[in-house]
Structures are given as C-alpha cells and as structure tokens.
C-alpha cells in the first residue's frame, strides 16, 4: 500500500488531534457534569438544610407563642376565664409574628377565641364567650389594628370548641398531649365556604393546682407555608414540596393549594381534615406529578428516610434534579427539592459550547498548522519528486527544485540539484553520443536493427528502413516475420520464428541466414542477415544486433557465376558445389571470387581483406593490416592508386586502374576497381589479369607472326612480279627467270602456310571431325615413307622403317600427315648421311604408367609410334613449346628449312583427337625422338 507523503504527514496528525481534542472535550464535559451533579447535590442538600432551618424557624413562632401564652396563663399573668383581653394580645402577637396566621384559645368552660390575620393584614375573629348569654359563636372582622369589630357572618349556634371537629376534636387530642402537638385543622375563619387547612401547635395549659384548664393554639396556614417555600425556591422552574411520610402534600412552592378547599354542606364533613388532604400524586401541576411518579418509581421508604435521596428526572425534555430530604425537628415532614438541570447546566453548557468551540478552533488551527507544516515539508520534497520524475522521464527541462529552510531537506535538495545537474549533463552527453551513434549507424551501408529480449525492435538505421518499410513496429519475436513480411526465400511461407536470426541471436547464438526474403510491397528482396547476441554482465542476452543487406545483386552475380561455373572444369564445379553445401557460404563465395577484396579507409589502412593470395602482395602478408596499402605497391602504382581512391571518394564513382609490375623476375598485370562505399571507405577489388594479358599477348603475337609469315612471301612475290612487269629485266633473261622462280617458290610457301593454318584452325576448332576407322599401321607407315622418300634421298638421309603388324583406330590421312610432318622435320634437321628411324610398339598398362601416359582419354590398348633422328637436338626448355604454333626452335628455321612453324602444332591436334599423346625427347647434338600414341583396334 502506498501513501503520499502529504497524507502520511497530515492524516495521522489529524486523527491524533481529533482524538485528543475529542477525548479532552469529552472528559472535560464529563468532569464538568460530574462536578455539576456533585455541586447540585450539595447545593440541593444545602437548599434542603436551609429550608429545614427556615421551617424550623418558621414553626418556632407558633410553638413559642403557644408555649409562652400557655406559660403566662398558667402563671396567672393572663386570665383564662376572661378572653376579651386576649383579643388584643392575639392581634399584637399576630402582628409581631408574620409567620403566624391564627391564634386561638379554648377552655374548660367552653369559651373560645380565635383571631386570624387576613391576607390584607386585617384580622378576623371568632369568639364564644360563655359569660355571654347566647353562647353562640360570633364572627367579626377587625381592622389592621385589631379594632372596630364588624360582624362578618351569622353567629353560629351550638358551637362547642371542645368538640370540634366532631369526629376528632383537637381539644381532646391536645389535652392528651401535655407537651403540645402539631396538628392540621380545617379553619373556617375565612368563611364556612372557604375552609383552609392550618398547621396548628396545640398546647394545653393547667392551673397552679395542675388541673387542666384549656388549650392554647397557634397556627399557620398551609397557604402561607407555600409562600415561604416559594421564597426558598431557586427559580421559576424549581419547586419545593413538603409532604408527609404518607405522601400527602403539606405545602408547595408552586402556589397550588395543597388541599381540597371544596365546601361541604355537612359541617362535620366540612371541617374534617383527612378528606381534604391531597396526595402528592394528585397535584395538578405537571412537574409535581412527574416528581410524584418518579418517587413512586423508586418507592423509597418515606417513613424511615434517613439520608437525602437524589433522583434524576426528565420532564418535557428537560432534566431536573430531585432531592428527597427528611426534615429535622418535631415535624415529621419530607422536603422535595426539584431543580431544573439547566439552572446549573447552563453554565456547563456554555462552558461545553466554549470547550467545543475551542476544540473546533484548536482542531482547525492544528489542521491548518498540520497542512501548512505538511505542505512546507512536502513542497520541496514534491518539487524534488517532480524533478526526479522529469529526470526519469527524460524531460529536457527539469523543473527547478524549491529551496527550503528545513536543513536536512535543503541539503537533500542541494545534493539532488548537484546530482540532477550531473545527470542532465550525463543525459546530454549520452544523448549526444546516442545521436552520434545513431548517425554513425545510419551512415553504415548495411541495414542494422537492434532487438530486445522480447524481439521488439528498438533501433533501425536508415538503410534498414529502406528494406523494412514498416520501420520500428510493435512486434514481439512471434510477430516479426508477419509484421515485416519475411519469407523463406523462393516460397510464400513466412519465415519460421525459431529460425529467424534475431530469435536465434536472442537464444545467445550468433546467427546467419541468407534465405530470407522481405516483401516491400513492390518486390521481394533477398536478404543476408548476420546476428550477434549482446550479453549483460550476468551472461543474459539483452539485445540481438542484426545486420542485413540486400543481396539481390549478389544473387544475380551468383547466378551468373553459377552459369560460368558450369563451363569450368569438373574439379572446380565439385569444389564449388561442396563449398556451397557448407555453412561457410559467404567465405566460400569470397574465396571463389578470384579477386582480392579489401575494405580500405581514406587513410590507406586496410580494414578487411579477403583472398589475400589472389594477387601479388608485396608487403608483409602475415600482417596485412599493419601498413597502409600503398606500401604494398611500387611507387608509381601506389601514387595512381591513391589518386583513384581519392577520386572515388570525392566523386562517388567507380575507378579503374590497370597496371603491370615486375616481381621475382615475372611480369604481373593487375586490374583494380575502387568502389566508393562510404564517405571515407572504399572497396578495392584487385584481379590478377596476368593470364588474360598473356593470352592477349599470345594472340597478338600469333597474329603478328601470321601476318609476318604471310607478308614475307607476299613481299617476295609482289617484288619479283613488280620488277618483271616493268620490263627492266627484258635484257636480262637469267635474272628475270630467277625472279619468276622466286615468285613461284614463295607462292608455294604461301599455299603451304595457308593450308597449315586452315588445317590447324579446323582441328582446333573441331570443325573437322576425324573419322576413325581400323587401319593397318604398316600401310600408313609405308604411305608416309613414300611421301618423304624423295626429299630424304635428296638430303642424303637414310630412312629405317620398322613396321609392326597392328591395326589402329584412326583417320588414315591424318595419321599419314602426322608421320610425314615428323619425318620431314627429322629430315630437315638431320645432317646428310644421317639416319632416321620410324618405329612402333604396342604398350601395356605398366608401360603407360612408367611413361606417365595414363590419361583419361587413353584407350585400354594402344601403341606408341616413334620417329628418331640424329639431328642437332632440341634444348630441354623447348621440348614442350615446340608443339605450339610458330614455336620453332629457331625462328630462322622456317626460312631455311621451309617449314611453316605449324607442323608440330597440327601433329599435336591430330594425335590428341585420336585420344593419344605426343611428346619429344632429345639430347642436344645427338638427336631427338618424337613419340605419339594411337589406339589399337579392339579385338
């Protein structure tokens, strides 16, 4: 998995920051909340305590007034039998103790006084004075000073305070509790139809004798208690509720009346306390009901509650804290404190909001810082990366790297810049070299391609593009033949991939092929391909380098040469054929060319030499590449060669040079062709044309001799006849006859010559086919001797003939002519009195071998004819040449001996046409023997 540096720097950083901020925020929130909860609990406990204290204080009033009044009565400071003075006493105390709302007294006599402070700070009074006649209970309204009583209701008859309320008279209860007691009573002070529940402290009082005398009471209306609670509440949404362990409401801070104030027709029922009580659950206040429900849900033991109980509460989507606290003192009440969490939590929420805001700001700040830092760090690195990428992509313009104040990165950057500079220079250098190499390769006259391991062509030089018209195409080894349309020569089959030189090269073997044809779309071009593998340092083939060339012309040359070769001797044909079959075809080809081939630079140094032995090499043949080629030629030829090379290079045309030189006493003639190949390289082809020259010279010589031989008798004839014609010899008949004789002689000589030339020409050209027939050799010998007997006799030569009885296969006239020629020559070169032998003998195979006569054309059985003389003999070096035309031992012989110089040449032709051989042996001064063989008739 790959990450960008920027992400790697930013993402973990962000995760870390977000995590930290979140955790800190959450912990802060939690601890805040915890603190708030604890604080709330403390606060609520405090509120409960405060309320408890206030209630304690509140109820201190009634208790104190009740007890002090009871004391005053017992002590006799107040008269208990006369209640009138008590009226002002009560008013004063009610004014003095605002928490007090009711003061009442009843005695054993049934007197009853009850003063109530009204809501408007005026007072109401009920009295039943027993001394008064009626004994009724009267109702009055007093002013704020407690004076000026005004009857406010009808007097009530038959009221006995000691039996009120009837079902549970408080009087009796108070009498039973000498220490006093708290008790709720229903007060009708406001009117019969306005019953009120009042919490009253009853205190019995006694006379000095300890006799029970009456009950003093001081009370406070529950409604006023509610007002007290309201004072104690923390806010509008808070509630303070007082309940009894039974669950009945005592007071609420909500202003709700904590009891049923419904008037009841029946008096007893109207004043009965219990039916008017209202349970907490019966509250009409929603929040109060919710609190009641929550309490019911936890169902605490309200009767034995020792410790405050905290309850969470959710009402109308708001959180509340609820505390249930037992009150101290003699009132067995429970205080319920309800505080909305918002009261405390607002600050927390504000804090939380600030925390969140702060966290978000921190987060944004750190993200920003992170981004900036990451960017600050990554920017130079990214610029490095871009530059690196540009470098690796070989972009010419490498984007500049950014400097940075981060030491390490900047030193990296400087290092990179340095390296990039060097690399760019190296790349440029490399590119220059590549260009040089490419232009060099493009100028190579050979086509050249480079392939990688897959066979894909990487490079193709200019020459190669002429042959592979598709250029560098996308093709692997398998596709090469098809892509470049390479065929097996002479067929329409694509060249097999595994045999392609490129593929073989990729297998690591140098390869060669000349049976590939490429289809350019216009024509098929035969190619010669050389491939060499290029190995890496691990010995792996990494490239295959392919050189190939159009060998159309060579093919044509080969065809021409093949045609030419058919005419060559069997031996050469066989040798060539075997060379063809061999793998070194190219070398063989070169070897087969009878020329020296040399690639030569402008500097004159040979670059490649083939067939060094084809010509005369004057220099050191062991190290032909060491010295300039010109050193290997005689000075004037070297100068001319140099000029030709320069001209060939300058004009691009082929130069020819033909020259002769003397070496080891022999004249050599060579022809050099200088073919420009590249701008500074030529191909020098040197051919030894000495033989051709020799043939030309021989031909010239022959023509010259023939011309001379013909013109000489013609000159004599022309001269003699010309002189005769003028008539200057009219008076000199002797001289004239001599001239005529001369003309005649020379005419005959001319005829002989012409005949001989024609005979020889017919024989050598094969225009006359000798008809071989069996003929007795003795007859032929006799015919020949007949022919020369006259001149032999004239020359004083004795002819000795030793015929044998043999029948030869031959053309009789030709054999006779041969014998006459040989005998005539013998006679011509014999001194008078000399002897000439004509002999014949049959030969065996052993003889043939001994005489070195075994030739292919020699028949199985043959005989040998010999003509031996005692003449002057023939020098050894002329024994063979005398059988050639006009090659007499001595030029003057033709004049003196009357020969044409063609006789032996004719003999040779005749003998050879019989499948025989002619030769001569001689001892100078002792004589010569001419032999020739003839086939015997097969028996």
């Amino acid at each position, binding site marked *: 998995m790959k990450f960008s540096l920027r992400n790697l720097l930013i993402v973990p950083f962000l995760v870390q920051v977000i995590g930290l901020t979140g955790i800190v925020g959450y912990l802060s929130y939690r601890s805040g909340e915890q603190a708030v909860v604890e604080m709330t609990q403390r606060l609520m406990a405090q509120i409960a305590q405060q309320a408890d204290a206030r209630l304690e204080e509140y109820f201190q009033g009634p208790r104190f007034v009740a007890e002090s009044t009871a004391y005053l009565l017992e002590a006799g400071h107040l008269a208990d039998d006369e209640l009138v003075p008590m009226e002002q006493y009560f008013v004063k105390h009610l004014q003095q103790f605002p928490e007090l709302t009711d003061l009442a007294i009843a005695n054993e006599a049934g007197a009853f006084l009850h003063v109530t402070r009204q809501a408007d700070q005026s007072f109401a009074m009920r009295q039943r004075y027993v001394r008064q006649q009626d004994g009724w209970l009267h109702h009055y309204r007093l002013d704020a000073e407690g004076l000026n009583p005004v009857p406010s209701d009808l007097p009530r008859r038959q009221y006995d305070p000691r039996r009120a309320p009837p079902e549970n008279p408080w009087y009796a209860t108070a009498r039973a509790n000498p220490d006093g007691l708290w008790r709720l009573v229903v007060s009708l002070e406001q009117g019969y139809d306005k019953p009120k529940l009042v919490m009253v402290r009853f205190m019995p009082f006694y006379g000095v004798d300890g006799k029970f005398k009456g009950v003093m009471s001081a009370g406070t209306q529950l409604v006023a208690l509610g007002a007290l609670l309201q004072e104690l509440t923390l806010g509008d949404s808070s509630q303070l509720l007082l309940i009894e362990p039974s669950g009945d409401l005592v007071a609420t801070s909500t202003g709700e009346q904590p009891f049923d104030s419904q008037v009841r027709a029946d008096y007893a029922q109207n004043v009965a306390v219990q039916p008017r009580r209202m349970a907490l659950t019966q509250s009409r206040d929603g929040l109060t009901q919710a609190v009641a429900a929550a309490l019911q849900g936890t169902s605490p033991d309200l009767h034995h509650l020792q410790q405050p109980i905290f309850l969470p509460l959710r009402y109308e989507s708001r959180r509340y804290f609820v505390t249930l606290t037992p009150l101290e003192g003699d009132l067995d009440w429970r205080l319920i404190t309800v505080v909305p969490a918002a009261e405390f939590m607002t600050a927390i929420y504000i804090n939380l909001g600030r925390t969140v805001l702060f966290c978000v700001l921190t987060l944004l700040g750190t993200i920003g810082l992170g981004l900036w830092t990451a960017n600050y760090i990554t920017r130079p690195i990214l610029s490095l990366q871009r530059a690196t990428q540009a470098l690796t992509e070989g972009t010419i313009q490498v984007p500049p790297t950014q400097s940075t104040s981060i030491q390490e990165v900047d030193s990296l950057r400087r290092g990179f810049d340095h390296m990039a500079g060097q690399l760019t220079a190296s790349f440029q250098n490399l590119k220059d070299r590549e260009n040089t190499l490419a232009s060099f390769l493009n100028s190579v006259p050979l086509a050249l391609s480079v392939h990688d391991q897959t066979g894909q062509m990487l490079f193709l030089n200019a020459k190669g593009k002429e042959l592979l018209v598709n250029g560098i195409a996308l093709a692997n080894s398998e596709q090469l033949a098809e892509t470049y349309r390479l065929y097996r020569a002479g067929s329409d089959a694509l060249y097999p991939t595994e045999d392609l030189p490129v593929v073989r090269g990729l297998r690591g073997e140098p390869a060669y092929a000349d049976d590939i044809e490429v289809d350019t779309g216009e024509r098929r071009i035969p190619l010669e391909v050389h491939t060499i593998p290029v190995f890496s340092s691990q010995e792996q083939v990494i490239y295959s380098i392919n050189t190939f060339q159009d060998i159309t012309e060579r093919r044509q040359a080969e065809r021409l040469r093949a045609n030419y070769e058919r005419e060559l001797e069997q031996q050469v044909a066989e040798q060539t054929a075997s060379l063809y079959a061999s793998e070194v075809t190219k070398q063989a080809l070169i070897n087969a060319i009878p020329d020296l081939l040399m690639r030569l630079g402008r500097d004159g140094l040979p670059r490649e030499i083939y067939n060094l032995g084809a010509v005369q090499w004057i220099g050191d043949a062991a190290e032909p590449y060491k010295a300039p080629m010109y050193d290997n030629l005689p000075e004037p030829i070297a100068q001319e060669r140099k000029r030709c090379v320069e001209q060939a290079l300058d004009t691009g045309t082929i130069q020819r040079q033909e020259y002769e030189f003397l070496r080891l006493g022999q004249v050599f003639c060579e022809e050099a062709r200088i073919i420009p190949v590249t701008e500074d390289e030529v191909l020098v082809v040197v051919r030894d044309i000495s033989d051709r020259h020799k043939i030309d010279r021989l031909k*010239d010589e022959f*023509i*010259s001799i023939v*011309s*001379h031989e*013909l*013109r*000489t*008798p*013609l*000159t*004599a*004839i*022309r*001269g*003699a006849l*010309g*002189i005769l014609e*003028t008539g*200057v010899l009219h008076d000199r008949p002797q*001289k004239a006859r*001599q*001239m005529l004789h*001369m003309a005649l*002689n*020379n005419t005959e000589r001319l005829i002989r010559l012409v005949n001989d030339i024609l005979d020889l020409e017919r024989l050598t050209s094969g225009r006359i086919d000798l008809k071989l027939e069996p003929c007795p050799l003795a007859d032929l010998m006799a015919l020949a001797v007949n022919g020369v007997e006259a001149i032999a006799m004239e020359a004083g030569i004795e002819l000795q003939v030793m015929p044998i009885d043999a029948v030869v296969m031959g053309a009789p006239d030709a054999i006779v002519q041969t014998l006459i020629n040989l005998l005539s020559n013998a006679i011509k070169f014999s001194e008078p009195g000399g002897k000439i032998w004509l002999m014949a003998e049959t030969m065996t195979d052993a003889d043939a071998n001994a005489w070195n006569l075994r030739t292919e054309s020699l028949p199985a059985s043959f005989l040998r004819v010999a003509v031996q003389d005692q003449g002057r003999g023939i020098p050894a070096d002329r024994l063979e040449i005398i059988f050639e035309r006009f090659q007499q031992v*001595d*030029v*003057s*012989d033709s*004049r003196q001996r009357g020969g044409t110089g063609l006789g032996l040449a004719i003999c040779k032709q005749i003998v050879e046409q019989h499948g025989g051989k002619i030769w001569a042996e001689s001892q100078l001064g002792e004589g010569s023997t001419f032999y020739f063989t003839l086939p015997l008739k097969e028996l």
Partner: protein
Amino acid sequence: MSKRILVIDDELDIREVVCLSLEEFGGWQTDSAGSGWAGVQKAVTTAWDAILLDISMPDMDGFAVFSQLQAQPQTQTIPVVLLTAKVLPSDRDRFAALGVAGVITKPFNPVTVWQQVAQILGWAT
C-alpha cells in the same frame, strides 16, 4: 652522287628484290646482309647513306641491330628506315619510340620503294 644503301634482312628473296629495285629504279648502290650480326659488321666498314633494316630476324633482330648502330659513333648518324612485315599498332608504337627515320611496310611496291625511302630521308628524287 649515287647513294649507298645497306639492306639487312634474313630473307634472301626479300634482299634480292629490295636491292634490285633500289638499283634499277633509284639508281643507288646497294649491299645487303642476311643477318643482324652481318649487318652491323657491314655498317661500320662503309660510309652508308642509309640502312634498310628488317625487324624479324633470328638471333639478332632489328631492334638489337638498331641499338648496336646507335651505340657506335661511326654508325649512329646513319639514317635507318625499317622495312618490316610487322603492322600491328603495338609494333608501330614500338617503332615510333626507337627514333628511326621511317618505316616501310611489307609488301611494298618495288618500283616506287626507292621514292618512299628518298621521301623519308628528304632526298631529291
């Protein structure tokens, strides 16, 4: 004054025809030699006005004779006219290089050959 001409040729018939022509039609005195060697010998013994020299001769050919003549003070001023059956271009080139006075090819007209010689040598006819 009659000119004295030396004819060097190995062919007897040619020598006879040439000498007869020059004597009969040119009115010159002639002598002849049948070989190169004999020709050189004769050349130094007499003061010749010109030498007619054949080229194709055994032993010592016309070229050898000419260089011998050129080598000796007595003979080097004698004008030499080649009388030869050699007519090939290569022969002509070789003759031209020799420095001979002229070349007459065989066969020649026996009646006018003396005039050819006289023309070559700038003699009045």
